[in-house]
């Protein structure tokens, strides 16, 4: 490959996957073009009500990422746009993008929403699953980014009839532009990531369930909207036919999944969990609901899922193992009549609402784009083809993939893959890092020490959001009377781009040294205004907001006078606080551009190579003498790869890479420092040499191990093996297959038990894999798999189907009556209760293979050393289950592989790459800023009483040699617990000093 490379990446698809990729890339120093076909980013996740297994509100956790994406100077949003084609070569592509006309100017629109209110044309809202309405000019949902409407040309009265233009008349900003035309852009990028997401299965294709004919049969996505407080029924559970509260609700699983007759022979991976979640949330809305889930297998295979499933059962949600044959509507009541078979008996029941748990699939548009780009798709379901050991690469070099387009998956796995894709995509252009970034222009910081406060107050109308309720002019005039206020004005939109310019001008002309904005929430807008201050050389902490929208106009609509009075109170409090604001110092610490990876298995080696390819140095520390970990015992995969060949090559690459230092036989013995500046001590055997490693980031990839069971005669009878032992014996030819007549595999050994309540995720696939291998080597061998639920999620389902086709016999057992194994000479007798036949099945077996749990490797000491958290089971605990799946809650430390939770090799590779991406956002920076809102100790006042040491949730304060408490600004999170507890008041939380909080109280009670 020759020619110039380009330090920019195009991410196609603005759902959570695309957003995560974009953020990781931009933070790691690459320019990003984020292309989204709909009017706003957010994707499917924005439509969801809550998320499993934490019941987090989906929008609440997504929205900050969207805002960050929307405001990032190095992310260019191209919404309402589509990728048409890609020319050139990896490293230097020319992407053709069609930007559809919005008929609203993005540079002027302030998102006030007036046009939407006044538009006379209504249609069904796609966002609300057509249960609600939207206008012809619309923003898909309230928090949409960009918050700029589009005009739907298909239904707009002006476009249809040439008359109307109401939106144009009412728009206070003059942003409506009917003359706008579609635009074709050509953009140069070094790599492309496809995060194209999914569509839900068209339930009309399962005609027997009546979707589309019966109003009270809805899809699971529609039910999300029904549950949502911002949905069509405002969070009340109503059914569409009569807007009445249904009492009995049924979910039908696998609608459009695991169904080869419909060309969908894969499992959609998420439906079991989202159905359980929907049932749990529905029950929270109304505890008297009767909720039933009809299922094939409950596939609760992810981290924390099994416990969630168990809690649903305990809460009284009914699980019926049965395939529903059909649904009929009762004409008078519009209730639904369901017929199903349970335990061999035909049963009938009525429900008031039926939810179809629809599967996920790539849209036709996605498949078309793939074709245009020359990206090959899987025969099964049309998902993107990726090599097993390179799960983020498409068949076109330079084009990468993440999320559901690569195969059905949930949000955390999508986020992991999205980060991972950003790592592999940028690895090819890492030499161009930072070449295309926007330089933010800042004036040198003005020193304001000794100056009297000169406060400027900007009061926002927010269109009519505030002004319709609060008398904004009165608030402005009132602000002028307050102490230290030298300037007060009102703005239609204080956050608009032109107002930022105005604020800057006023600061300079009036010599302001504090700024108060009375508008909306600091949570969303404070960063913007702080940025504005910095641009004219004011310290960003000399800023204060009074929230007169969320706290006044929105919540006191019926009391305009009261709202105005309160707005004045809030402004007075804000001004009182502003007068006491101080510029805060942020220390800059250089970043040690080196990574430490602990653990030399597949996860650790992948991470090490990933860092090296990003151009960073790596220490790879392994406890054992050899690299490879568990992978040394894996000999084949379901899709036919050779792991040993891959491993050999990988070890070669790792050990010869000039940027990687491999340290084997090494044990971590100490660790200290903060993100960007860690130092870790290792003791190296056999000489027990101590070595100190200095690094900026840490990845813990300490792995897992197979549970060695105590049950089923393991260790007592030579014919009882674990799956890994079976694989090893077959591979080494130590098994005389000719001698074997019958093999029995037992699933869930040591998993899903009281003692170890989690599902080990991989054992079902491993059993299927080894059963298929045995069948391949000895076709006449009889193989039984005794299981509870077969959890071959996603595209793995194909192999489960294949195993059954090859004659592997799968028999379900119930946990109340687990199988029993008895020795009978060289052979074994396996007895299992068959619940459909209501009888014991007795199998004479030559070999019993136990599919045992995956345990985290011993990591307790290590976790304590690195001050990271673990789950009850001993797996590492991520900062956020959904959106930060590889970050620890301590900054600068990341996790991957089995140490996080059981997973397959391709998933481990993705996660390791994700850890690289997340860590690279830190390593890419030359220095990090620490400090700001942190606790500061006044040594003379400190009595070294240790109360702060105990109060800090993160263990940051310590008593130094000179006998006073020290709080490292780089480690402090700024919660202020220590300041509140300190009996001497020797500690003050900057920006929230006691003096400031009291000043607010006084301003409130005493007036001016």
């Amino acid at each position: 490959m020759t020619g110039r490379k380009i330090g920019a990446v195009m991410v196609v698809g603005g759902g959570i996957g695309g957003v995560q990729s974009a953020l990781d890339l931009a933070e790691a120093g690459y320019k990003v073009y984020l292309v989204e076909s709909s009017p706003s980013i957010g994707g499917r996740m924005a439509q969801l009500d809550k998320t499993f297994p934490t019941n987090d509100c989906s929008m609440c956790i997504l929205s900050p990422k969207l805002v960050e994406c929307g405001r990032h100077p190095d992310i260019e949003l191209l919404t309402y746009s589509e990728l048409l084609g890609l020319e050139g070569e990896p490293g230097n592509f020319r992407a053709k993008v069609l930007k559809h006309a919005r008929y609203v100017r993005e540079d002027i629109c302030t998102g006030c929403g007036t046009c939407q209110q006044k538009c006379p044309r209504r249609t069904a809202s796609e966002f609300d699953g057509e249960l609600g309405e939207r206008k012809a000019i619309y923003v898909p949902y309230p928090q949409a980014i960009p918050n700029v409407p589009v005009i739907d040309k298909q239904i707009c009265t002006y476009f249809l009839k040439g008359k109307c233009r109401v939106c144009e008349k009412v728009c206070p900003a003059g942003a409506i532009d009917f003359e706008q035309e579609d635009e074709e852009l050509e953009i140069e990028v070094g790599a492309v990531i496809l995060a194209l997401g999914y569509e839900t299965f068209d339930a009309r294709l399962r005609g027997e369930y009546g979707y589309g004919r019966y109003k009270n049969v809805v899809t699971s996505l529609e039910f999300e909207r029904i549950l949502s407080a911002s949905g069509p029924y405002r969070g009340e559970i109503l059914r569409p036919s009569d807007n009445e509260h249904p009492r009995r609700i049924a979910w039908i699983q696998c609608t459009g999944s695991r169904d080869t007759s419909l060309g969908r022979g894969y499992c959609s991976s998420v439906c079991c969990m989202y159905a359980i979640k929907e049932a749990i949330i529905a029950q929270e809305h109304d505890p008297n609901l009767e909720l039933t889930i009809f299922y094939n297998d409950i596939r609760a295979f992810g981290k924390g899922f099994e416990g969630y499933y168990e809690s649903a059962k305990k809460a009284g949600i009914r699980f019926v193992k049965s395939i529903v044959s059909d649904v009929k509507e009762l004409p008078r009541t519009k209730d639904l009549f369901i017929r199903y078979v349970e335990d061999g008996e035909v049963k009938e029941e009525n429900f008031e609402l039926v939810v179809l748990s629809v599967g996920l699939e790539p849209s036709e548009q996605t498949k078309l784009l793939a074709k245009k780009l020359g990206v090959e798709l899987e025969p099964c379901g049309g998902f993107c083809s990726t090599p097993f050991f390179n799960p983020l690469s498409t068949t076109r070099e330079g084009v990468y993939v993440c999320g559901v387009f690569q195969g059905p998956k949930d949000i955390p796995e999508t986020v992991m893959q999205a980060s991972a894709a950003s790592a592999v995509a940028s690895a090819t252009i890492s030499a161009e890092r930072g070449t295309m970034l926007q330089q933010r222009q800042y004036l040198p910081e003005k020193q304001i020490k000794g100056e009297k406060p000169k406060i400027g107050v900007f009061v926002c109308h927010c269109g009519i959001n505030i002004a319709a309720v609060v008398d904004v002019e009165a608030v402005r005039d009132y602000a002028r009377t307050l102490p230290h206020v030298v300037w007060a004005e009102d703005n239609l939109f204080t956050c608009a781009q032109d107002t930022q310019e105005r604020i800057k001008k006023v600061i300079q002309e009036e010599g302001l040294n504090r700024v108060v904005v009375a508008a909306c929430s600091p949570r969303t807008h404070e960063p913007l205004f702080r940025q504005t201050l910095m641009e004219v050389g004011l310290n960003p902490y000399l800023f204060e907001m009074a929230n007169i929208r969320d706290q006044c106009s929105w919540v006191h609509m019926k009391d305009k006078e009261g709202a105005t009075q309160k707005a004045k109170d809030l402004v007075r409090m804000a001004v009182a606080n502003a007068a006491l604001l101080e510029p805060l110092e942020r220390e800059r610490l250089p970043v040690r551009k080196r990574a430490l990876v602990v653990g030399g298995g597949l996860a650790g080696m992948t991470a090490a190579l990933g860092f090296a390819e990003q151009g960073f140095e790596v220490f790879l520390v392994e406890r054992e003498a050899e690299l490879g970990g568990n992978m040394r015992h894996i000999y084949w995969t379901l899709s036919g790869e050779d792991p040993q060949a891959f491993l050999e090559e990988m070890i070669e690459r790792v050990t010869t890479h000039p940027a990687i230092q491999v340290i084997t036989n090494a044990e971590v013995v100490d660790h200290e420092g903060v993100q960007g500046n860690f130092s870790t001590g290792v003791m190296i055997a056999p000489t027990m040499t101590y070595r100190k490693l200095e690094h900026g980031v840490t990845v813990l990839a300490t792995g897992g191990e197979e549970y060695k069971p105590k049950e089923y005669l393991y260790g007592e009878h030579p014919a009882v093996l674990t799956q890994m032992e079976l694989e090893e014996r077959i591979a080494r030819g130590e098994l005389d297959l000719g001698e074997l007549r019958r093999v029995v595999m037992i699933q869930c050994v040591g998993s899903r038990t009281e003692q170890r309540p989690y599902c080990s995720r991989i054992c079902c696939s491993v059993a299927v894999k080894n059963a298929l291998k045995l069948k391949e080597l000895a076709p006449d061998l009889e193989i039984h798999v005794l299981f509870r639920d077969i959890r071959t999620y996603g595209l793995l389902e194909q192999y489960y189907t294949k195993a059954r086709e090859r004659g592997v016999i799968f028999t379900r057992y119930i946990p109340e009556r687990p199988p029993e194994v008895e020795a009978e000479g060289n052979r074994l007798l396996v007895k299992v209760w068959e619940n459909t036949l209501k009888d014991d099945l007795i199998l004479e077996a030559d070999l019993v293979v136990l599919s045992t749990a995956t345990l985290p490797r011993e990591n307790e000491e290590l976790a304590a050393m690195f001050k990271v958290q673990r789950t009850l089971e001993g797996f590492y605990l991520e900062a956020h289950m959904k959106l930060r799946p590889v970050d620890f809650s301590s900054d600068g430390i990341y996790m991957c592989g089995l140490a996080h939770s059981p997973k397959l090799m391709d998933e481990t590779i993705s996660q390791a790459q994700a850890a690289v991406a997340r860590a690279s956002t830190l390593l890419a920076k030359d220095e990090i800023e620490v400090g700001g809102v942190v606790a500061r100790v006044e040594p003379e006042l400190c009595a070294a009483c240790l109360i702060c040491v105990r109060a800090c949730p993160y263990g940051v304060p310590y008593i130094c040699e000179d006998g006073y408490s020290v709080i490292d600004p780089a480690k402090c999170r700024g919660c202020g617990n220590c300041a509140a507890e300190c009996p001497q008041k020797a500690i003050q939380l900057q920006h929230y000093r006691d003096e400031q909080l009291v000043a607010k109280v006084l301003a409130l009670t005493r007036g001016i």
Partner: protein
Amino acid sequence: MDYPPNVKLIRVPCSGRVDSVHLIKAFEEGMDGVYVAGCLEGECHFLTGNLRAKKRVEYVKGVLTTLGINPERLRMYNLSAAMGSRFVEIAREMTEMIRSLGPSPVKTGAGREFPQEQEEGEEQ
């Protein structure tokens, strides 16, 4: 989503930042009621800050009792950022409760209100 405008918020990074002194100061200044709103228990953004806040609220309730101020005027609530309607409910509940108690004795100079003779008709 509507609640009485007599509720005014002071923003803190964590409910654990709220010092006993701040609470007492508010009462000293004649506030009729004060409540601390923190994350749900077990879901504190800063791990344990809300539990510390709870302890401090309990402590200040004791101080109020000693001073003859009805400790019911101070409360701790736990809710998540996603619970707007609960926030409204709390604001109303607290306002109604304070209305039924009447203005703070600090403001009226009415002397100890607590402990006092059986008060009737106290609404919750």
